[in-house]
C-alpha cells in the first residue's frame, strides 16, 4: 500500500475533536503549548502540523506548501486525506512550511477591512518550541506570556494591521503553540 494512504486519523470524530480543543486552547491563550497526537504524516510535515491539517483542512480550504514541504509525499498525503486544493501563497487559506520558506509574508491573505476573517493561517514548522523569549501581551493573556518566536518584527508589523493580518500556529514534533494577529509582541 502506498505510504500516502497511511497515517490519517483512525477515529476521525474523536481525534479531531480533541485536536481542535488543543488548537482552540493555544490560539485563545497565546504562549500556551499543547500536544497534538494521532496522525503520522510524511516528513517533513511534523505530527502536530499533520493533525492540524486533518482537523481544519478539507476540499474547501486551499493549502499552500512552502519550501521543502512542497514535495510529492506531502502533496499526495494531503490530497488523499483532506482533498485540499494545493495552491500558491496568494490564494491559500492555510500555509505550511518553515519560517524562512514562508517568506515573503506579504503574499498571504490578511483579510479585507469588512471581512477580516478571510485571512490566511500559517502553520510554521519550528526546530524548537519553548515558552521563553518574546514577550506576548493581549487577548488571551492575563499579564505576559513568552514564546520562542522565529522573529519579532514580522509579528509587530502584522499586529499593526489589526484587525487584518494572518494568524500563526507553531509546530515542533507533537507540540503546538499559536499567535493570533491580536497579540502584541515585544523583544525581551
Amino acid at each position: 500500500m502506498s505510504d500516502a494512504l497511511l497515517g490519517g486519523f483512525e477515529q476521525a470524530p474523536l481525534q479531531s475533536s480533541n485536536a481542535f480543543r488543543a488548537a482552540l486552547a493555544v490560539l485563545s491563550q497565546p504562549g500556551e503549548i499543547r500536544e497534538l497526537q494521532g496522525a503520522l504524516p510524511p516528513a517533513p510535515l511534523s505530527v502536530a502540523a499533520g493533525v492540524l491539517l486533518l482537523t481544519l483542512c478539507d476540499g474547501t480550504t486551499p493549502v499552500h506548501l512552502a519550501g521543502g514541504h512542497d514535495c510529492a509525499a506531502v502533496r499526495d498525503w494531503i490530497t488523499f486525506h483532506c482533498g485540499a486544493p494545493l495552491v500558491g501563497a496568494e490564494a491559500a487559506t492555510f500555509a505550511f512550511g518553515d519560517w524562512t520558506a514562508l517568506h515573503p509574508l506579504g503574499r498571504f491573505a490578511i483579510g479585507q477591512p469588512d471581512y477580516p476573517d478571510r485571512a490566511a493561517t500559517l502553520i510554521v514548522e519550528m526546530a524548537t518550541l519553548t515558552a521563553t523569549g518574546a514577550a506576548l501581551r493581549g487577548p488571551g493573556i492575563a499579564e505576559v506570556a513568552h514564546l520562542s518566536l522565529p522573529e519579532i518584527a514580522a509579528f509587530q508589523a502584522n499586529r499593526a494591521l489589526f484587525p487584518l493580518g494572518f494568524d500563526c500556529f507553531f509546530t515542533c514534533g507533537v507540540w503546538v503553540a499559536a499567535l493570533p494577529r491580536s497579540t502584541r509582541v515585544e523583544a525581551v
Partner: protein
Amino acid sequence: MTAHHDATLADSYNFAYLDEQTKRMIRRAILKGVAVPGYQVPFASREMPMPYGWGTGGVQVTAACLTPDDRLKVIDQGADDTTNAVSIRKFFQRTAGVAVTESTVEATLIQTRHRIPESALTAGQILVYQVPIPEPLRFLEPRETETRKMHELEEYGLIHVKLYEDIARHGTIATAYAYPVKVEGRYVMDPSPIPKFDNPKLSNSPALQLFGAGREQRIYALPPFTHVVSLDFDDHPFEASKAPHDCDLCGASDSYLDEVITDDQGGRMFVCSDTDFCRVRQEAGHLGAMAVPNLAGSA
C-alpha cells in the same frame, strides 16, 4: 467510533450530531473569531433538529467544541431545569455521550441562554452563548451592507445616540439587557441578551467565551482575559443593575434575581435566576426570607 455502553446514546449519529465537514467549517470560524475578538465571523449555519430561537447557533458551536471527556452544563436564563436547557442537555447526552452536570464549577463546557453563571468561571472552561441577533447595530440600521461598513470604519456614533436617547427620555440609560460593549477598543459587540448585571463578568474572564447565532449565521468570541467595556458616558456611567432585594430562598444579596408571581393577590418573591448558585447556597445553610427548611435533609 468507539463502542459506548450508555443506553441513551444514539450510535447512528456521528459524534456530537454534526458531520465532520460541518464541524471543520465551524471550527475554522471559531478560530478566526478568537483571532479577532468581537468580530462576527459568518459561517454556514446548518439546520438543526430544533427551531431557530432555541439555541441552534449555540448548539452548533457546542457540537464543534465537545470532546468525549467534557462535562456539559446547559442553562436557560440561569436555570438548569427549564425546557430549553433540558432539551439541549439531552440532545448532547444522546448524540455525544458526554457527562453532564448542573454544577458550574464542575462543568468544562457551559452552554447558556441569556445569563453568565454567578460563580466565577475558571481557566479552561468554555462558555457558549446562544445569540438571537448578533449585530448590535441591527435595530439602528437594518442593512447588513451598512452595518458591515460601520464596523469596518469603527463608525459607532449611532449606538451612542441610542444610549443618549435613553437618557433624554428616561433620565438614565434604560437599556437593561443586550447592553452593547466594546472589545479591546475595537469592535462593538452584542453580548447576547444577558442582563447588564452580567456585563462586568464579560471582561477579563479566565474562561473562553464563544457566541453562536444560528439563524443569523454568525460566530464570535472573547478569548480569556479580553478587555471588554460597556458603552456609557462620563456623566452617565455604566451601572450593573438588579432588583433591589435579597433572594427569598437563599438570601443572596449579590446575585441576579427573577421576580416570581406567587398568587393573584399581588404576592411575589424574588429568587436567584442561577439555580445552581441558589441550591449550593441553600445546602450550605443560607436561607432567605421565604425559605422553607429542607425537611428531607433534616429528617
